[in-house]
């Protein structure tokens, strides 16, 4: 069992870490990032993202103080940007755990360079996601009613048949498990940080955070087992979360929502968007921190392949969705799809098609898979497309459902826009803080896949 991080000559070509690095080099390369002054770009970035995070705070305060009416939501569009943003962020939150867990189980060793940052991204994305269902409620101060807490006043319980309750359980479980997974993965590296710490405060903080890890064989024995179990648990979990998110829609009676293909479709979309976000961030991180040898072009190309594969699944799902609507013979269902491509929100679905279906096809060509600017552009476009996918599902289905008398149109307000922008700000702020203070690459894992050093050299 303990052979997962085998330290044998790795018969991989090309190598996972470039430039003949030693163990100490790896430690240095990674740990240094948090130990010295960050590059100027970091300060600029956090100033901007921090501002947006504060804007998010302001928007949420305004929302709670005034009411949901500050958003553009209405009847019939009860959910709009709020839940679109929620699904968007939850989707992004899927790549991290997927890389950590599924690729781990599939022995994809190239994951080691990116899994730490991807997991962090997962957690921050889920934090951003969690904001929306909480604040989309009309009375967020009553949100604790969503948890089955004993209550002597009311003796009331939740309706566990509601997909929103499933969501509560799924998202909170996912967050908790991802956090534990991430933290467990961090412990050995935190110990490394502790042992490199130059100041008493760093020592104390990392000393406490690393929980006294000393890399003992007994530690590693239980640790690896735990990691394997967590990976095993996270794999179905990550699939269940977006399936359950899709149930919010699939279990309803709304035409355009009530579709059996949603669970796999949502999961594929989540991986698609998650990987796109990972690519975007990794490109920026390796550039800013100059760790191209750790996050190699091969890593990026692998991720581009995943993007292409999931993009094809997503495109296929779109096709199936349309076919199902057509084949069902259900006039309401058919109408929704006609309305999507030709109705007032047609621009949204065509944006989605362009970004999610057509653009990723460029990755069939190696040229694009190995071109950083191309990757950056495509990965950003994919996330734009994936946001519009959720917008299409939610708003376009709701705005024209059964009774034409109650059809309506949704127009976002500036609060909608700034809340979403603010959530991006929060996400980036958290990510930048993570980059600044925690080891962004799983050192112990990378060391495990290091090409055999001639002889470990020490100063």
């Amino acid at each position, binding site marked *: 069992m303990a052979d997962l991080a085998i330290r044998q000559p790795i018969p991989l070509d090309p190598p996972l870490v470039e430039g003949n690095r030693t163990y100490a080099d790896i430690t240095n390369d990674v740990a240094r990032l948090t130990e010295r002054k960050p590059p100027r770009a970091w300060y600029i970035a956090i100033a901007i993202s921090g501002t947006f995070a504060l804007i998010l705070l302001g928007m949420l305060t305004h929302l709670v103080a005034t009411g949901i009416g500050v958003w553009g939501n209405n009847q019939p569009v009860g959910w709009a940007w709020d839940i679109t943003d929620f699904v968007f962020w939850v989707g992004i939150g899927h790549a991290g755990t997927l890389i950590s867990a599924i690729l781990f189980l599939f022995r994809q060793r190239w994951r080691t360079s990116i899994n730490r940052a991807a997991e962090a991204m997962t957690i921050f994305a889920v934090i951003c996601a969690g904001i929306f269902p909480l604040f989309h409620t009309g009375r967020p101060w009553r949100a604790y009613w969503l948890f089955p807490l004993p209550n002597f006043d009311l003796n009331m319980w939740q309706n566990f048949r509601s997909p929103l309750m499933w969501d509560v359980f799924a998202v909170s479980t996912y967050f908790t498990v991802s956090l534990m997974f991430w933290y467990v993965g961090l412990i050995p590296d935190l110990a490394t940080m502790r042992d490199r710490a130059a100041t008493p405060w760093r020592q104390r903080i990392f000393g406490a955070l690393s929980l006294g890890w000393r890399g003992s064989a007994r530690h590693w024995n239980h*640790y690896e087992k735990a990691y394997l179990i967590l990976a095993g648990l996270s794999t179905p979990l990550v699939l269940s979360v977006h399936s359950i998110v899709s149930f919010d829609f699939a279990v309803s009676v709304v035409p355009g929502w009530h579709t059996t293909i949603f669970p796999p479709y949502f999961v594929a979309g989540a991986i698609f968007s998650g990987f796109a976000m990972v690519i975007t961030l990794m490109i920026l991180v390796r550039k800013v921190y100059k760790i191209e040898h750790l996050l190699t072009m091969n890593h990026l190309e692998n991720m581009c392949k995943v993007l292409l594969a999931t993009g094809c699944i997503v495109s296929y799902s779109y096709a199936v969705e349309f076919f199902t609507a057509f084949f069902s013979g259900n006039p309401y269902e058919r109408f929704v799809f006609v309305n999507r491509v030709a109705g007032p929100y047609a621009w949204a679905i065509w944006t989605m098609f362009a970004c999610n279906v057509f653009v990723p096809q460029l990755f069939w060509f190696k040229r694009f898979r190995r071109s950083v600017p191309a990757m950056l552009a495509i990965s950003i476009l994919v996330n734009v497309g994936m946001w519009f996918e959720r917008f299409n599902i939610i708003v376009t289905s709701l705005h024209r459902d059964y009774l034409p008398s109650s059809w309506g149109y949704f127009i976002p307000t500036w609060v909608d826009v700034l809340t979403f922008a603010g959530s991006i700000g929060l996400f980036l702020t958290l990510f930048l803080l993570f980059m600044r203070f925690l080891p962004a690459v799983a050192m112990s894992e990378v060391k495990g896949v290091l090409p055999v050093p001639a002889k470990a050299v020490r100063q």
Partner: protein
Amino acid sequence: MSESRLYGAVAEFQTPEDLLEAARAMRQRGFTHMDACTPFPVHGINEALGIRRSPLGWLALVAGCAGCAGALLLQWWTGAVSYPLAIGGKPLFAFEPSIPITFEATVLLAAFATVAGMLALNGLPRLYHPLFQHQRFQRVTDDAFALVVEASDPKFHATETPALLRNLGAADAQLVEEGD
């Protein structure tokens, strides 16, 4: 310090292969109270040191079953016993809509048990450990591979054991005290 008891001897190796060799050799010589400290898990060290398989799997299984049963019980009791409400014309309790929450609770409890079990079995968190006194110990989280022979080992000897370790290829071997 002078009154402190001896904790053991720490030998430092430069590669995992050296460590493994030394560990096997020590074990052949009958040393049993040994440990290795490495920057990443080293394949074969468990066999070399005689460490048994981790029982975490069973713990996760039990906790997962508890989560599963607990969630089902919660949904049945709240919906059908504590406050039955007619909702959507559906039965007060049914298996199908209970699946998602049951699944999530299963995973949650199993994961909790796994992490808590891992920490408990490893005796973590532990802020102080005698090995932390060792001058070069910080390298085991970087690029050094340490073999620890505890003083409690019946075959331990304060002078011979470090020498033996050096003979087995250790770049460095020192005694570590319990500390205060």
